[in-house]
């Protein structure tokens, strides 16, 4: 069973959301520990995953998550329900994680230009030598086509495959990592992901495309190496 959350997503509309949050705030103010625990359990996984992407250690990531929950408690009265609750919580986390991450690295603030360069200047998502060139019989078609993976569900749930997945994600530029984590690991919608990360529709899709393509390529290399080893 993975991280995919069935509940508080983009489902309820603004007024239902506001009502739900009012109930939640009332419960929290009563000191209802179960309500708090439920909240933490429900949103914990994606918070921890995002935090880990920004800071150098698990211990620091836990601090960032704890700080985030305090900020959520202190700010929840002001939450108006215009976005989903988890989107709001995610944006608090990201603020904290990014700030802490920069502090830990002791670097200059992340420049807009550098970010654009990182996102745009990426290599093609599939190595050009996989396709036929203008000198070949079918330019633009596979030179070496991908092969169907044997028993993919089984082979992709091994420890090793998961390690390959996580390593591939760790190598992505940070914005791509954030998008693929929310969309594909946590199962958020495009709209929520955009809101949480402050991205345009196109931007979100491009980042997702690059991230997914690289992760797929990493898995393909892993499977091919596997085949050779057999």
């Amino acid at each position, binding site marked *: 069973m993975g*991280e995919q959350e069935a509940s508080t997503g983009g489902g309820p509309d603004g007024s239902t959301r506001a009502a739900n949050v009012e109930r939640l705030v009332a419960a929290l103010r*009563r000191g209802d520990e179960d309500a708090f625990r439920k909240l933490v359990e429900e949103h914990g*996984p994606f918070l921890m995953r995002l935090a880990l992407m920004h800071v150098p250690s698990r211990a620091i990531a836990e601090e960032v998550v704890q700080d985030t929950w305090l900020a959520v408690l202190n700010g929840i009265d002001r939450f108006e329900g215009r976005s989903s609750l988890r989107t709001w919580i995610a944006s608090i986390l990201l603020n904290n994680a990014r700030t802490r991450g920069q502090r830990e690295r002791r670097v200059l603030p992340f420049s807009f230009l550098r970010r654009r360069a990182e996102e745009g200047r990426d290599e093609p998502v599939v190595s050009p030598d996989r396709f036929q060139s203008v000198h070949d019989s079918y330019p633009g078609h596979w030179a070496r086509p991908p092969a169907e*993976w044997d028993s*993919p569900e089984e082979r*992709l749930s091994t420890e090793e495959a998961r390690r390959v997945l996580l390593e591939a994600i760790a190598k992505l530029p940070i914005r791509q990592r954030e998008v693929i984590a929310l969309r594909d690991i946590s199962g958020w919608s495009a709209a929520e992901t955009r809101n949480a990360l402050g991205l345009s529709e196109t931007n979100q899709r491009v980042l997702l495309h690059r991230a997914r393509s690289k992760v*797929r390529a990493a898995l393909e290399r892993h499977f091919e190496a596997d085949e050779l080893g057999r």
Partner: protein
Amino acid sequence: MNEVETPKMSCKELVDVITEYLEDTLPTEDRGRFERHLAGCDGCQAYLDQMRETIRALGHLPPESLSAEAERTLLEAFRGWR
């Protein structure tokens, strides 16, 4: 009126637009070109399958969580908050 044949999609183009396809944001015409190409290209079908399996595997990664100690600290903070 003569029918103009829409240019066929190449494998390279398919790879480029695959996320738009999966997001359901490809314009109708391109979606047609995509699916027509797919019907006749094992390599691209395999690529699409791999992409779907990758996404599925990502969704099945074990969830992250706080350590028991961090959870305890958090609960203490909650008690202190109200």
